[in-house]
């Protein structure tokens, strides 16, 4: 999928000591995989930004070597190097005096592309990052924070650089927009296959986005470098364990497929059925009401039906919990399965197929049993 050749980034015992003596990064050895998202995460002041900025020489390493694709970054002049590396910062850092289109066209124009051609490409990039083209003529101050951040991403992508550096790009927007932006980044990445180095202090963001996560501790030391699943299951020490958080066991379920969890049959009742038939169809006092496509609409129970006469209407339903997709290979995770069970009014989580039709139910017990089996078979490092 990658559009260009691979770009591995290697830190070889890289140290950064600032003029005032602060050691921001201490002999860092790190290999960043090509075409993947690598997240640098850690508490404030641990040297994430410094590490990131050493890659495009916004900060010069005091000692050690950084290689991009085997080539020492010092072999190129900084400005030349930077034109080949996309960079996105918090609050987007857009040029207030340039329209959205001209902001996006910045690097291509610097590289010598004709203005008109660069603008056409910029318009396409608006599509890529999910912004309407009409926004192209606006100035950054006329956009919402989330829109500005998207423009920042488009600007970084404009010259199609193989490497993208992102420094807390989504931390200044509200949680809902942040969620959108994260999803969008994952979607983009699945199409573009860039080598992305992403800095955040939010471990949830790191786990959601990272193919690999590097946890740094204050003093610029690498504490652990692993996949999110391993990080959650096997933190190397107390620092990492406390940093990944208390409910890491629960979040680790997010990396296990739910296909091992037993799905039991559920009684489904079409909307509009006579209430008497519905009462007779309940199992364990509960039943799922479905539409004509077998998609779940809500629950009914013995007690909820006790005051209802005639035909079953939507107003008679008890709201359902979350759903999880149970047909392989696109099966949901044990975490979504457990959440479906815990959030369901009946205690039984609804499993659906990828088309959204009810296939059965799952209980918290069966999720835990599946976890147990996964542990025993060595799927989870315990």
């Amino acid at each position, binding site marked *: 999928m990658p559009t260009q050749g691979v770009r591995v980034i290697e830190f070889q015992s890289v140290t950064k000591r600032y003029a005032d003596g602060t050691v921001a990064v201490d002999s860092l050895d790190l290999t960043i995989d090509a075409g993947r998202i690598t997240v640098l995460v850690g508490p404030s002041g641990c040297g994430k930004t410094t590490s990131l900025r050493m890659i495009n020489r*916004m900060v010069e390493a005091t000692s050690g070597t950084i290689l991009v694709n085997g080539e020492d970054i010092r072999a190129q002049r900084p400005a030349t190097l*930077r034109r080949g590396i996309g960079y996105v910062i918090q609050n987007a850092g857009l040029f*207030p005096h340039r329209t959205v289109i001209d902001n996006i066209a*910045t690097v291509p124009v610097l590289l010598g592309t004709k203005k008109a051609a660069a603008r056409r490409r910029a318009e396409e990039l608006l*599509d890529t990052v999910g912004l309407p083209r009409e926004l192209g003529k*606006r100035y950054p101050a*006329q956009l919402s924070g989330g829109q500005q951040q998207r423009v920042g991403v488009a600007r970084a992508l404009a010259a199609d650089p193989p490497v993208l550096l992102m420094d807390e790009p989504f931390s200044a927007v509200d949680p809902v927009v942040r969620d*959108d932006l994260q999803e969008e980044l994952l979607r983009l990445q699945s199409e573009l296959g860039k080598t992305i180095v992403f800095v955040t202090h939010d471990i949830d963001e790191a786990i959601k986005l990272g193919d690999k996560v590097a946890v740094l501790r204050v003093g610029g030391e690498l504490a652990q470098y692993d996949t999110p699943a391993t990080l959650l299951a096997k933190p190397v020490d107390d620092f990492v364990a406390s940093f990944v958080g208390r409910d890491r066991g629960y979040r680790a379920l997010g990396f296990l497929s739910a296909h091992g969890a037993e799905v039991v049959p559920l009684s489904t009742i079409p909307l509009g059925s006579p209430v008497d038939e519905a009462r007779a169809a309940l199992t364990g006092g509960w039943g799922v009401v479905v539409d004509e496509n077998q998609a779940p609409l809500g629950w009914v129970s013995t007690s909820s039906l006790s005051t209802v006469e005639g035909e079953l209407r939507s107003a008679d339903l008890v709201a359902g919990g979350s759903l999880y997709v149970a047909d392989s290979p696109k099966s949901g995770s044990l975490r979504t399965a457990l959440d479906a069970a815990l959030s369901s009014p009946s205690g039984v989580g609804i499993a659906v197929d990828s088309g959204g039709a009810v296939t059965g139910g799952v209980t918290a017990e069966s999720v835990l049993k599946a976890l147990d089996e996964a542990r025993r078979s060595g799927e989870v490092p315990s």
Partner: protein
Amino acid sequence: MNWVIDHIPELLSAAVDHLQLALLPVVVGLVLSLPLGWVANRWTVARAILVPVSGLLYTIPSLALFVMMPLLLGTKILDPINVQAALTIYTVALLVRSIADALAAVPDSVVQAASAMGYRTVGRFFAVELPLAIPVLVAGVRVAAVSNISLVAVGQIIGVGGLGYFLLHGAQSSPPNYQEIIAGIALIVLLALVVDGLLALAGRALTPWTRQQRGPVGRGRSVVSR
């Protein structure tokens, strides 16, 4: 009004001289102040020297500066260069500080982003920092232009004063020619107002982004692939 009507050609040509004496120093001063202001913004030491020195220059009385110019430059007493050089010094004294302040007010994140995009120092200055400094810069240029237009008249002391000629000549006539004095003053004020207004308009034309109101914003579409 008779005197005015009889002297329209002289008044007009003096007004043109006056403008040229006042505004050429603004242009030259601006060109000189840009690198100085940039240096002052870039290095703390440079700022610690340049800003107080230019403040000091501005406090020299114009009369003294005009009189000193032929000595300093070795020029003839009636050479218009004397007045223009003195006004250039005032302009620089005014603008160095405002340019340094304007550059300092450009958000660091924007400057950093420009570097990260691959701008070199000079390219970044003209493409990003200078445009963003325009609002403050224009304010400084307007003050310098208006102040120069009024100071030119003082240059009449060393024989080159544009419309200042009519003030001095009118006052020294016996009896004093008030029509001449008032005409000179009125034209100077008029020039100052017109130049100030034109500069304000130019400033607006150069900074369209400062006027845009935040329009209705729709949230970006999310998770849409096509």
